[in-house]
């Protein structure tokens, strides 16, 4: 049986791992390559590097980080943040990334998804979607945000579910659903958002934003119907290790790779 994936996400800025709360107040949490090796030993199923500044002069730093990681760590690695062209993607894949996550560039020009998928295959094109609940609407709806690497981000004027469906049609092979409301709060994933996306699309869905306890991961997988869970703070600050999180999930009857 296909197991559910536990994916630590390393937000990288200037070659170092940081993690902000609601995309603000970045704190330093270490060397990305060391952390990648550490998480691999602990049983991480994949890794995500998210380049949170991704200015063009820092692109080279990220490439070097990906290269050093891929030399040492033999589990799938996704790189996201600021990838704007087929050439940007090619460079990351050549450095050793298995997948790339695209967000803003895909919203601004949806045909970018198709060009990327045709060139490299859908399996390595991940839609990173940042969504925020629209207040006072029932049934609940979520709006897509871009430029979330900068403070707060910008509303894209797109419905999250409709955008997810369109992106799959255009060729993405996976969707990371990040709740802006939940990100960094450690109060649990946005389960309604996850259910809405996962129920709508045929590709795997990765839950992101809000993990505080192993119970939150369990809820995302069961109640949120996610295929994988992404988390940062709870792992980076040692609140829970990946191995103890996995043991907990196994006890709850979730198929997990040990």
């Amino acid at each position, binding site marked *: 049986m296909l197991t559910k994936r536990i994916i630590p996400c390393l937000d990288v800025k200037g070659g170092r791992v940081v993690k902000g709360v609601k995309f603000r107040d970045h704190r330093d949490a270490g060397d990305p390559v060391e952390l990648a090796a550490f998480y691999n030993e602990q049983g991480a199923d994949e890794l995500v590097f998210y380049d949170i500044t991704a200015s063009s002069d820092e692109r080279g730093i990220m490439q070097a980080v990906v290269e050093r990681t891929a030399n040492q760590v033999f*589990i799938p690695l996704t790189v996201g943040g600021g990838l704007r062209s087929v050439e940007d993607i090619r460079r990351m894949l050549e450095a050793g990334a*298995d997948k790339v996550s695209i967000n803003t560039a895909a919203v601004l020009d949806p045909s970018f998804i198709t060009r990327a998928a045709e060139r490299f295959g859908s399996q390595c094109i991940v839609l990173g979607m940042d969504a925020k609940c629209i207040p006072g609407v029932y049934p609940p709806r979520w709006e897509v945000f871009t430029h979330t690497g900068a403070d707060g981000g910008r509303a894209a004027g797109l419905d999250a579910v409709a955008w997810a469906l369109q992106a799959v049609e255009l060729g993405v092979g996976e969707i990371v659903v990040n709740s802006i409301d939940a990100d960094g709060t450690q109060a649990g994933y946005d389960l309604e958002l996850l259910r809405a996306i996962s129920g709508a699309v045929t*590709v795997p869905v990765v839950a992101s934003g809000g993990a505080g306890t192993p119970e939150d991961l369990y809820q995302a997988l069961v109640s949120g119907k996610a295929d994988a869970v992404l988390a940062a703070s709870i792992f980076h600050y040692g609140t829970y290790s990946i191995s103890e999180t996995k043991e907990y999930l196994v006890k709850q009857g979730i198929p997990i790779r040990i």
Partner: protein
Amino acid sequence: MPKMLKDGHKVITIIDYGAGNLRSVVNAVTKLGFQPKITNNPDDVSSARALILPGVGAAADAMASLKKLGLVSPIRRFIAEDRPFFGICLGLQILFSGTEEGGWHECLDIIPGRVRKLPAGLKIPHMGWNQVRQKISHPLFDGVPNEANFYFVHSYYAEPDDKSLVVGETEYGVSICSVIARGNLVGTQFHPERSGEIGLKIYDNFMKFALTARLSSL
């Protein structure tokens, strides 16, 4: 007669035809102390001791690249001579007669059978870690526990006409042929280069039997 390994005999030829996972495969081979020779030259392919065909992405594009590089005949001949060959993911699928991917495309036609779309109802691609059930004992599985997890990412799966070639199976809606073997040819649907320590073990096993005693002489 098995030969003693010398440094010059630790070279593994990896075919570079634009496959996305080339770099990870090269890293895995290097990590294990072998010497990857990356090439798209037909002569290098013909003279290789052991070949790895990586692959990820679309079958039709991969076939077009192999044709353009003049690698189709050298690969066919290499396998016909039962020399050690390892196909990974798409590198396994394109050995078959043809694929349903994007209509119907003829492939290398080295293994009779077809490549089919995974059944609807489950998430596609089949992405993540899944168990491989070992159907027979095979040198590729040395030191690999039965039902060990490997990393998969694919939307199509290979179905050989001759079921006895299936040495490893994985469940995802259907029984997928996840490991195939015919003489000194082996192939995996999963990505051993992305499957942690246990994946590296698969490469190590292949390179050991490829470079010392070949399977057929075991």
